[in-house]
């Protein structure tokens, strides 16, 4: 089970973005994480993915802490796939960075072979997101954190991506954390929903125009 126990995080000496937050995702389970933006959902996603390290608390799988090197068992899929790719690399290289991708996954996601020789700026958002997901669907992946993965996509591509990843995750007993503000989507894909960020009262915009952290 992927667990974050009493995790607190802030940047240097800034305000606490996460304070004593806990979450658990079982293998093969899909957990939904709704809530308005700016609450810390993305920060939690990054902590689980090993991009950030908590100041307090711990994150681990089973009883072990997450590795700092080697293939990280928790893979993140971001909202903007073009940022997660080297703009000077061609698509085939991006796709195979973590090893040769599973051909069944590539086919299920509808990835065309003639995309392989293209650069990221030549492909559309939907195509890039499918490449990013295929890359994350690695045999060594145990958990996927989808941070607004399909927020920028049309309904058909969104359904395609989710159907494929849910099927794959079920067969391999991979846990998924679905971060999304789309409640209907979460009620479709999630087994259960963590409402820690949702229960918070939406802070009114203060004089400075910024929503208080």
């Amino acid at each position, binding site marked *: 089970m992927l667990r974050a126990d009493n995790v607190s995080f802030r940047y240097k000496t800034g305000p606490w973005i996460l304070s004593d937050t806990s979450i658990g995702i079982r293998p093969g389970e899909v957990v939904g994480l709704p809530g308005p933006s700016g609450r810390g959902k993305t920060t939690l996603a990054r902590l689980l*993915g*090993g*991009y950030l390290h908590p100041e307090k608390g711990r994150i681990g799988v089973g009883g072990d802490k997450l590795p700092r*090197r*080697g*293939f*990280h068992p928790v*893979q*993140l899929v*971001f909202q903007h796939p073009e*940022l*997660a*790719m*080297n*703009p*000077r*690399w061609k698509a085939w290289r991006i796709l195979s*960075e*973590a090893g040769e991708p599973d051909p069944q996954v590539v086919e299920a996601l509808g990835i065309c072979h003639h995309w392989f020789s293209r*650069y990221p*700026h*030549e492909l559309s958002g939907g195509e890039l997101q499918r490449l990013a997901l295929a*890359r994350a669907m*690695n045999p060594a992946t145990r958990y996927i954190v989808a941070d607004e993965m399909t927020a920028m996509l049309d309904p058909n591509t969104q359904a395609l991506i989710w159907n494929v990843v849910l099927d794959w995750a079920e067969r391999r007993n991979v846990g998924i954390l679905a971060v999304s503000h789309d409640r209907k989507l979460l009620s479709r894909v999630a087994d259960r929903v963590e409402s820690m960020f949702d229960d918070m009262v939406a802070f009114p915009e203060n004089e400075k125009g910024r929503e208080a952290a």
Partner: protein
Amino acid sequence: MNGSSIMHSPSTSLADRLRLMDGRGRAAWTVGLCCLYFASLAVTAWLMDDSGLSTDFMNRKLAPSLAYPFGTDWLGRDMLVRTVKGLCRSLGIGLMAAVFSSFVSAGLGIAAATLGPRVDAAVSGLIDLVMATPHLVLLILVSFACGGGATGVVVAVTVSHWPRLARIIRAEVLQLRQAEFIRLSHRMGRSPLWIARHHMLPHVLPQFVIGLILLFPHAILHAAGLTFLGFGLSPHNPSIGILLAESMRHLSTGYWWLAVLPGLSLVVTVKLFDVLGNRLRLITEPRTSQV
């Protein structure tokens, strides 16, 4: 409905077929022509023998003509030969200076971006120090300290020009280190060395090469400038700086071709290097290479 067709359609003219009408095609042509110019300059200098450099008191101070396209100087030496050979020599010096300077830039830039905040502070301080010093003063001091000559010029240009490219490379590497795809690569199990070689190098290398090429004009001009002022190359072998220095004496007496023609040649050569560097950048950037 009073509509009308908005037609903008191209013609497949010769210009179109030769790819002159689009950015990348034009850039490729420009790069080709520039390279042709430099190649022919080098070949011409090599082909010309030194006879044009010998003094010939019969043909002193001749204005430009068919026999002597750049005229002759007060010793009867063929100005065209002197200019071409001088340019080549200046180009050679400029090349050496640009190469050394670029490697120093790359080394210090990468060190500043990857070896921690203290190294970064030290290198940045050094950059600020060198950039704050008046250019020409620094050049003269270093050249003098190194005893002048070709060595002096090369060292002087290296010492005064490395900051510019170093800042660019430092910024590029710093930005890359924060890039999402770099962190993702690490999370997929790739080692920092692998990431440096496969992710960062493709970004930094083009900057480096283009920075090197764009440094040429500066290096050549400064070599000429230093020589003109007497702190650079010796008068025994022709170089543009020497030509210009010597021609100063004769300008007031109306022998304009002694200064103007070598000067113009220098400007044109230097400008073409600049153009070459910029067009190459256009071609190698994946984003602009398809326009």
